[in-house]
Every structure is written in structure tokens, then in C-alpha cells.
């Protein structure tokens, strides 16, 4: 992946096994978010392939990748600010009958029935994420942590097989963080695969296996928490004299 003359992600190759929580760590500017955006379809890689369940997905637009069951969240949460939490969740379910203009006129019963189903599901997910009491608030009135939960909730509404989480723990107070970690592991047990970028080492080391380490746009190593902790290259990468840059 290049921007002008700059290589942001170069020669990165890895596999994510099903039913894992794979962590992706690395210093600022390592190319993690770029990698993420390439997987999610925001960028088209200049070279290389991205496969999901054996299918090539590089070059597909984000909404097509979503429909394959691969869902993402954003580093800085992007809920629809003027819409309520409930509405944010209700937007998500793929291929809703009522999303077609005509079905609202010609199949109102089907639309209503489906709407009720989605509504129940949204309430359930909101409850699971502890958002039940703010369902009718516009998202712009929520705290940053709650907005992260809304994003996770949106992801769940899609019944995804894999979720890309971009720094779910950043800027979240400790009690909420614990809750987020809790939810992730619970969802993992339900069979959802995760790939998450995180700076909070505790969280990554406790939650993730395996862990990928990136630096300067390259993959440095892959291994479990133990291996990452003991690898001197990782420490080097974090402390090394590379210039800081925002990712």
C-alpha cells in the first residue's frame, strides 16, 4: 500500500484462524490502521491479495465487504450522531426488506414484521452491551466509551463472522474497559472471530492469541503473549529511534 512515494504497509502476510482473537500491535505509524482500512475496503492495496473465507476481497468497496460478514469499527467512534442509539442499531441489519423504497408501499406487513424482529434484536444487543437505558438518546449525547459500545452493537446487529476492532480500549475509563473486554471474550465464545488493534498492552496480552506485531509497515513477528513479551525486537520497535507519526 503506497501513498504517493510513501509505503505505509509493505510485504505483510499473515493468516487469521477462525475463532481466535488476533491482536495487532505496533508503535504509532507502524501501518496498523492502514492495514485495517485495506482489509475493510476503504483503500485498495496497490499490490497483494486479501482473502476472506477463501475469497478475494481486496478492491471491493466497504459495503460489499460488510455483506461478506466482515465488519469493522473505527478508531474514533463514528456513530450517526443525530440518530438515536436504537436507530443506529436498526440501520445495520443487512438486506432489510424495508430498505427498498417499493417494499414499504407494497409489502408493509412484511416490513413491519421484520422491523419488530430487528427491534427485539437491537434491544437484546443493547441490553447485552449495557446500553438499554440510552436507547432513545441521540448518539452525539453519549460518552466516548458508550459510543464505542454502540459501534460494537452495530457490528453485532449484522451477525458477523469476523469483527475488526480498531482500538476498542482507547480513551475509555477503566470500569467500562473491563466491560468491553468482558463482552469481547463472551462474543468470542459465541464463535465470532476478532482482529483488534490495541495500544493497551494488558488488554492485548490477556485477550489475544495470537498477536501480530507491526513496525514501519512490516510484520515484525507473530506469536502468543509469552513470545511477544520475550521477543527483544518488539521492545526495540517501541523504543527505537523511528520518528513518531500519527497513524
Amino acid at each position, binding site marked *: 500500500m503506497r501513498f504517493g512515494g510513501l509505503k505505509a504497509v509493505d510485504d505483510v502476510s499473515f493468516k487469521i484462524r477462525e475463532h481466535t482473537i488476533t491482536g495487532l500491535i505496533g508503535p504509532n505509524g507502524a501501518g496498523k490502521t492502514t492495514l485495517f482500512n485495506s482489509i475493510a475496503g476503504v483503500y485498495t492495496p496497490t499490490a497483494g491479495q486479501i482473502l476472506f473465507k477463501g475469497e478475494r476481497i481486496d478492491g471491493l468497496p466497504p459495503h460489499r465487504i460488510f455483506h461478506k460478514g466482515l465488519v469493522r469499527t473505527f478508531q474514533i467512534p463514528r456513530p*450517526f450522531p443525530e440518530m438515536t442509539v436504537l436507530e443506529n442499531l436498526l440501520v445495520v441489519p443487512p438486506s432489510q426488506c424495508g430498505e427498498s*423504497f417499493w417494499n414499504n408501499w407494497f409489502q408493509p406487513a412484511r416490513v413491519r414484521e421484520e422491523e419488530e424482529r430487528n427491534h427485539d434484536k437491537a434491544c437484546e444487543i443493547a441490553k447485552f452491551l449495557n446500553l438499554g437505558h440510552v436507547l432513545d438518546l441521540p448518539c452525539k449525547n453519549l460518552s466516548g466509551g458508550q459510543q464505542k459500545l454502540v459501534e460494537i452493537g452495530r457490528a453485532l446487529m449484522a451477525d458477523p463472522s469476523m469483527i475488526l476492532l480498531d482500538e476498542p480500549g482507547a480513551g475509555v475509563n477503566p470500569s467500562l474497559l473491563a466491560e468491553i473486554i468482558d463482552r469481547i471474550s463472551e462474543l468470542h465464545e459465541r464463535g465470532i472471530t476478532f482482529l483488534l488493534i490495541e495500544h493497551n498492552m494488558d488488554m492485548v496480552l490477556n485477550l489475544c492469541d495470537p498477536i501480530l506485531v507491526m513496525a514501519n509497515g512490516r510484520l515484525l513477528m507473530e506469536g502468543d503473549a509469552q513470545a511477544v513479551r520475550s521477543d527483544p525486537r518488539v521492545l526495540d520497535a517501541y523504543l527505537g529511534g523511528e520518528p513518531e507519526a500519527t497513524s
Partner: protein
Amino acid sequence: MTGIVSYLVFFSILASIYSLMSLGLNLQWGYTGLFNIGVVGFFAVGAYTFAILASPPAAGHIGGFNWPFLAALIAAMIATGIVALIVGIPTLRLREDYLAIATIGIGATIQLIANNMNWLTGGPNGIYNIPQPLSAYFSSNLGYNVFFLVMIVVILLLAYWSLERIVHSPWGRVLMAIREDETAASSVGKSGFSYRLQSFVIGSILMGLAGALYASFIKYISPTLFMPVLTFQVWAMLIVGGSGNNRGAILGSVLVWALWTMSGSVVQAILPSTLQVKGGAFQIILIGLVLMLVLLFRPRGIMGSRKAVVFAGESKTVSGE
């Protein structure tokens, strides 16, 4: 007293026609964030299609199809929809401001066609023998106008009801999601293009419908009517009434149209005689100012958007990567 009633009926008919346009624009701008500054172009397509199809034969231009009112009305809406597709398909895929540029172009182009394609539009002389539906059954002018008002209010309510219903459906929800944050919408699987196109076409069809009704009511259309100032009028109506709010769109139309028809007298009363010629300019300056100030201080219009939520400061927007 009958005079006042008669005038109010007349006023309400025109205000309703503007309301239809303003509702169409509200779907495009208020709910989808599409910046259409060629409203007058779609209005003109509707008006001319109706006039050409519904009129008896006339010298100098194509016509004489004598279509029944309803058929011509529907044809006008279809024609406007097609024009909207032609403008929308190349531009709605691209960045938002391309639509603005394209719509200002289509507005200008349609005005040029209206003024210059004599065989089609009658050129500068316009089309002057447009029939009114059922006018033969009314002996008094006021009686007919009352009938027309009832008809147009029914159409307006129908449009309002349909819009309210559709914007509160899952379809409308996606529209709003795209307006709020296109990237996030795309990350949850909603492709902006197709929804934007639908919204754009439906909104434009309402403008075309307004044009057809105008042509039928006034019985005469000519290129002088389709000046850019009409687009600004409709924008002022929506912004004043509150974009993102269908009731606001209608309220704004009534208020601004009342102001507009009286502003001539107001301008005459306020401005010294040496500046009177520039009254039109002052009016537009006022619109420009209102547009900018509302954007700066009340981005969602005076009535606010659909939900009367507590305003917790400016809408927080999130910067991208």
C-alpha cells in the same frame, strides 16, 4: 370579504406549489444531504412536459396531444425523473459537490432550451393554451380556484404523508445514516450511491409535479418564469422552515412566499427611491445572508430536524483518518 377569501385561495394554491418543491428539496437536502441548486430546472421539465402533452394544438411548436390531466401529470413526473437520472448517475457516485455543479448546469441548460428550442417549447413566447382540469364545470372563477385548492391540498397532503412514511421507514433510516456519515454507513453495508440516486430522483419528481400543477393553474408558461431566483426561493423556504423536517418545509414555503409577494411593497416602503431599482438585489442579499447565518448558527434550520432533542452544543462531527 369575498375578495380577501378569493385572494387567500389564490395565495394558498401558489404556496402549496412551492411547498411541493420545498418537500422535494427537503428529501434531497434535509434527509440525504444532496445539494441541489437546479431546482428550477426540474420544475421547468415538469411544467413543459405537462404543457406540451395536455395542450390543444398550437402554432409554432409541437403539441396538440390533448392528454387528459392525470396522464399528463404522471408523464411530467416521469420526464422529470428521467432528467434527474441523467444528472444523478454521473455525479452522485462522485464527491458531494459535483452534484451542486451539475445541477446548476442543468438549471441553466434547461432554461436555454426553453428559450431557444422553439419547436418544442414555443421559445420565448412560451405555451399559452394550457388547459385546466374540469374547468368547464365551474361558472365562477372563485369556485374553480377553490376546487383547484382542494385538489392541490390533497396532493400536498398525499405527498407529505408519503414522505413522512417513507423517511421513517428503514429506507429513510439508511438515507439519514448516509447523510450523517457516509463512511460509517458504508462500513455497515449501506452503499451511498443507490440511495442517493433514489432520493434525488424522488425529490426531483416532486419538483416536476409542482411544475406541472403550476402550468395547469396559471395556464401559461414561458422561460421568464424559470430563472435561478426560483431555486433560491425554494432554498430560502426550506432553510427558514427547517431542513430535515417536512412540516418545516411547508411552513417555510408559506412564510417565505407571503414575505416574497409582499416584499416588493416592503422594499418600496423602506428603500429610498434612488435605491428602488436595486430592490431585487437587496432581496437576494437577504437570502444569501440568511443562508449563511442559518448555516453558521443553526445548521439544521429554524424548526430543527425531525426530533425535538435537547441541543447539546454544535453537532459533533468526527474527522476521518
